[in-house]
């Protein structure tokens, strides 16, 4: 078999897989939203405000409800030391956007 045939075959397989990933994404978005609906309903009934992503500190658990100076809450010169502090940017209002 010619080398170019092998190359195009590999490229074709990759393209088909990419198309399959795209179709999977479209399918999940339209058919598998049960969990999303359930979560949204829970947020509404329990009046939740945040995602449960970082439970390491109370001010990282509820990011939107934390004090504006919470990274420095232990004492005035205490820099943020929790790893999740490096994943979240400052609020838009603080950045002046």
């Amino acid at each position: 078999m010619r080398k170019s045939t092998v190359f195009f075959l590999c490229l074709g397989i990759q393209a088909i897989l990419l198309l399959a990933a795209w179709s999977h994404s479209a399918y999940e978005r339209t058919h598998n939203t049960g969990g999303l609906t359930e979560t949204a309903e829970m947020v509404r009934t329990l009046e939740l405000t945040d995602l449960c992503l970082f439970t390491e500190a109370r001010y990282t658990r509820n990011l939107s409800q934390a004090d504006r100076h919470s990274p420095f809450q232990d004492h005035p010169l205490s820099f943020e030391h929790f790893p999740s502090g490096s994943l979240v940017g400052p609020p838009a209002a603080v950045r002046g956007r």
Partner: protein
Amino acid sequence: MRTWIEKQRNIIDFTLSSLARRKGKNVALLLVYSLLVFLLASVMFFTHALRKEASLVLQGAPEMVVQRMAAGRHELIPHRYLDAIRSIRGVSGVHGRLWGYYFDGVTSANYTLVVPEEAAPAPGHIAIGQGISRSRLATTGDMISFRRYDGTPDALIVQDVLSARSELVSSDLILISEQDFRKLFGMQDGLSTDIVLNVRNAKEVPTVAAKVQKLLPDTRPIMRSEILRTYDTIFDWRSGIIVVILSAAVLAFVIFAWDKASGLSAEERKEIGILKAIGWETSDVLLMKFWEGTVISLSSFLAGVLLAYVHVFFTPVVLFEPVLKGWSTLYPEFRLIPFIDPYQVATLFFLTVVPYTVATIVPSWRAATIDPDSVMRS
């Protein structure tokens, strides 16, 4: 057309044979390039899906939360504030919200205790999130012990475990009755954690927020739009770890491109010289180099993007899990819905495939335009 296709195929055959002659170097290049795309695409897919999911899920968050501040910190809010807020025109459905944090010394985890406004558990009972169920090995009917504010022990029966599908918001939740909540934290009647309110006309929310702040200067209103915006800044490119990943990736790519653009190896120059000497046109040499760049960059791009898709949407995001977990002992196990932004994928394509291909062609063009004899001699 057929002749043109055949010519391209012949050049590709030759290019692939040429790449195979430097197998070690090119395989390493392919792997590193794929890894680079994989890393960037993983960050892109993960952050976009998480932001999208947050924006959809948190649409049901309270329209406005009013916190009382004392010495710059969140304080419990007295119920007389409810009447003051109720008097503002346009406000509807004002009530106090009871929630708080409990540090469990047994698992060294922080739990979020919430008193539901509707259908709260009966006194003496709680509903727990999946994360707590896993860490405390507790399920329906089991008892979980707590230590009250004054040190006296309390035991509450698990009446329900919250659904696994909602773990992204409920993993560390404990739903508790108002009576048990107040007993646990020693919170007096007439105090709430904060106040939740609705506004009849959504356009008036900022005006109502301003009125709340004017009427009650020691409060801080948090609007739903602000809650939603909070998650826009998550994994923002300026946040620490993302800057590290991006700068490492960009640096690696610059080294690639620099290596290519700064010139060809003596062997490659000699190859071009021989090809020119046996009758190849400059355009043919450039075409060969174009295919060389395309073979490497397109294969790496497709492989990197596919691997990133599988990594983010089919596995528990192993690459980010340790970073996301941080020092948490309780972490939700969630699977994101694959929301993909085609614009981001296109950007990644143009930022990786195009510069590499161009960087391959430029030095070859310089070598191909020089006299073959001098190229071979140099």
